[in-house]
């Protein structure tokens, strides 16, 4: 109790004005409830589709999308390529450690607004020239956040509430350029930052295993996908493998996404390539380097995109351009023989 009093005495706090950023998605939890009541299928039906169909049917120009995984780890690359191929426009994006995913969508000129935690970089691999150029030219409207803030914005939506109080971002320019609002705890008077629930129009997640109804297993880290799956109005799942429902029923503790969250399931082996898929294949660092290098020159980049995305029919076509099963098996060896 003494400590409690002490902290309250030093809480001679002032409240800053709300962040100047724009809220790109509606945080209203009641509207989301209505949507989930009316539009989310409860019936456990087979919902297997193709990448081409899900992008055509479930992603509209102007939609706000949330992407699962972590930049170039367990990222739904097959769907991202199809978004580019179908020339979707004016998408919004939750830039929650967006690395190769951001790079793909910028290359296709698909996004015009972004909630930023991490963009334009590919972590230790360096920075993307085209992504930087798009942002520096003001082609993508930004609102600033952090990884924790975005993951908790998903969590608020997943909980069915319109905001959550958090303790990051306070006192910084990251806060100033966000859309967060400072608030007082009604119990302790402590200062918090209220971050609005983030309900994406479409969530896209790549998983290790799913059945035809959309019950999913993910191996390894979840990143923010537990909450992203629950926050998304529509949810597209791509899976390395379709498995029998019986397999799910025998391992229910591993089911991280239940069928009633999922609108479509697509089997896409190597669907996270050139990213890393835990226990399956390592990231193709050579190809990612080649992509970054191609960005140095407009013509080279146009050729690169033509060769790998526009000029192929589907994701299997892309995998053929990078060396097919032979290259993928090398990456499987890299992933599974990491022992020293």
């Amino acid at each position, binding site marked *: 109790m003494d400590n409690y009093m002490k902290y309250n005495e030093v809480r001679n706090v002032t409240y800053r004005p709300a962040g100047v950023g724009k809220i790109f998605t509606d945080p209203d939890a009641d509207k989301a409830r209505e949507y989930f009541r009316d539009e989310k299928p409860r019936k456990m039906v087979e919902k297997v589709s193709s990448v081409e169909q899900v992008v055509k049917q479930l992603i509209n120009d102007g939609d706000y999308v949330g992407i699962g995984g972590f930049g170039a*780890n367990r990222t739904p690359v097959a769907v991202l390529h199809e978004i580019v191929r179908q020339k979707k426009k004016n998408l919004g994006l939750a830039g929650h450690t967006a690395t190769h995913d951001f790079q793909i969508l910028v290359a296709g000129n698909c996004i015009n607004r972004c909630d930023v935690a991490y963009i334009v970089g590919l972590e230790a691999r360096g920075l993307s020239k085209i992504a930087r150029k798009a942002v520096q030219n003001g082609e993508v409207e930004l609102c600033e956040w952090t990884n924790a803030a975005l993951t908790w914005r998903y969590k608020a939506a997943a909980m069915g509430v319109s905001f959550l109080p958090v303790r990051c971002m306070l006192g*910084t320019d990251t806060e100033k350029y966000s859309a967060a609002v400072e608030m007082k705890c009604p119990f302790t008077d402590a200062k918090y930052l209220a971050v609005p629930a983030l309900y994406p129009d479409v969530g896209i997640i790549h998983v290790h295993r799913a059945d035809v109804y959309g019950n999913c297993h993910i191996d390894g880290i979840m990143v923010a996908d537990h909450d992203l799956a629950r926050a998304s109005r529509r949810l597209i799942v791509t899976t390395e493998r379709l498995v029998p429902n019986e397999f799910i029923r025998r391992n229910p503790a591993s089911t991280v996404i239940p069928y009633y969250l999922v609108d479509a399931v697509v089997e896409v082996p190597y669907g996270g390539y050139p990213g890393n898929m835990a*226990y399956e294949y390592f990231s193709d660092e050579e190809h990612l380097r080649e992509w970054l290098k191609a960005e140095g020159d407009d013509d080279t980049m146009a050729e690169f995109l033509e060769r790998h995305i526009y000029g192929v029919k589907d994701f299997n076509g892309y995998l053929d351009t990078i060396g097919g099963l032979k290259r993928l098996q090398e990456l499987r060896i890299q992933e599974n023989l990491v022992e020293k």
Partner: protein
Amino acid sequence: MEHNDMELMICLASRYLEDNSIVVVGTGAPCAAAMLAQMIYSPRLMIMFEAGGIGPLLPSMPISVGDSRTFYRALVASSMPEVMETCQRGLVDYTFLGGAQIDQYGNINSTLIGSDYQKPKVRFPGSGGANDLASFCWKTMMITPQDPKRFTEKIDFITSPGYLSGPGAREEAGLPPGSGPYKVITNLCVIGFDEETKRMKVESIHPGITREKIIENTGFELLWSDNLTESDPPTDEELKYLREEVDPYRYLIGRA
């Protein structure tokens, strides 16, 4: 033993991570420092990655804070909210940050250069998890080369909080009391933070470096410790583990 600046910074940083504590690291030098600490000084140091990896037996340095190496033979393959909430709860002792600019209070810019937010002169990735870790972890460290452009009086954007505008400012902002910048380890010296003013204070100078050189490479006025010492150079043991076990392909230490 001969060594370069990167090796020097990693070895010095590894000495500050106490045994039986928890550190959240990213890729690069911080990860190398934590691995080296585990091998020599702090075998029970627990390493976490913000994407969800907890307590891995790292086979090599990760490329991404979410790649499969970050939870290789780990205790837990968890999630980003799990790790961030553990930090917010006050269980994480150390973290490491980097950035394009840093000021005398340890505030860091990794977002942009310029004055127009929507059309910056140069855009960097942004916070990622850096702001969160700087807000929540008890002790924030930095490993960075020192030059006057990087160590600057006024940074273009406060991405992650140091001591903000000085004493009491973190608490006034609502950040958890008792947290904040701890050490800045550069190629020239080790810098701490003055208890009273919360400004950077040089604690030890690396062998062969002069006070003048440090001043030349800093864009603001530094404080100097009354017990200013010379930094202990990397030991043979540190360099051996760093070169043979932590970074055998010299991805990191070959860059300096």
